[in-house]
């Protein structure tokens, strides 16, 4: 597959995942399943952008790992706060 084709397909996938995420989240109740779905879609979109648009596959490991970790920060925190929100609130109460 050519580099141009990869970029084109990545763009289509990112658009599709965005629409899918909104459709699933619209009017949903805050439960674990929807949090997992939103977190997963966000993580996939982030990884696609990092690997295909930013082209960090062959980049310096320090750059590649830092950006990939950043791309996981929000998805992981979505799930953690859903599961342990009360505990986090009590730990951060002055």
């Amino acid at each position, binding site marked *: 597959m050519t580099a141009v084709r990869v970029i084109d397909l990545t763009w289509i996938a990112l658009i599709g995942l965005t629409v899918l995420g909104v459709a699933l*989240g619209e009017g949903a109740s805050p439960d674990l399943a929807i949090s997992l779905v939103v977190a997963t879609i966000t993580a996939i979109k982030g990884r696609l952008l990092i690997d295909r648009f930013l082209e960090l596959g062959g980049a310096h490991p320090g750059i590649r790992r*830092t950006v990939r970790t950043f791309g996981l920060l*929000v998805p992981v925190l979505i799930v953690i706060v859903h599961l342990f929100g009360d505990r986090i609130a009590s730990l951060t109460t002055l």
Partner: protein
Amino acid sequence: MWTLSPVLSPPGELAPEPPAAEQIDPRIPGNKAIWVGIFAEMTEFALMFLVYFVARAHHPETFHLGAGRLWTLAGVVNTLVMLTSSFLVARAVLAMRADHADRALVWLIGAFLTGLGYPLMKVLEVRWNLARGLDGRGDVFQLAYYYLTFNHLVHVSWGLLGLAWIIARTATGGYSASDHRGLVAFASYWHTTDLIWLMIFPLFYVLP
């Protein structure tokens, strides 16, 4: 004259060559300077994300209701704008790599015009918000929403200025297939700013 360093360069001998210019590490996309900026940007937003999640842990109901009060379509449109502008910049890099500077210029102009849609949509969104009392002086959800999205708007605005400069450089033959590190440096910044929006978007417009 070669006699400025008589101890190191006896008369009749050439002075030692100056140190070689800094080696370019091909594993660093663009240049080191842009990655210092990008890491600073990621650190800034990582801290804001932590504040968002602590606030969400304290006020889950406020955040659940807050998402339903925002103009979801505006968030979706801005996501499509950022993704498309980022895509066009990626195509510009590929075109330049293939030694098609003229095509790269067209892709970059397309990216700029598409990117302008972001601040324009933000203006419409803020007007929509204000008409419904979402002026940032309300609950913690509104505070987090305005703080994060306005900060991101600042980064997009800087990016658009940078993109205008990259367009000017490309139009005047500043880049070639063999040397277009400036273009790649900008592309890295623009894609990262897009990545940050992909993280912000579900927090306010999607997550119930």
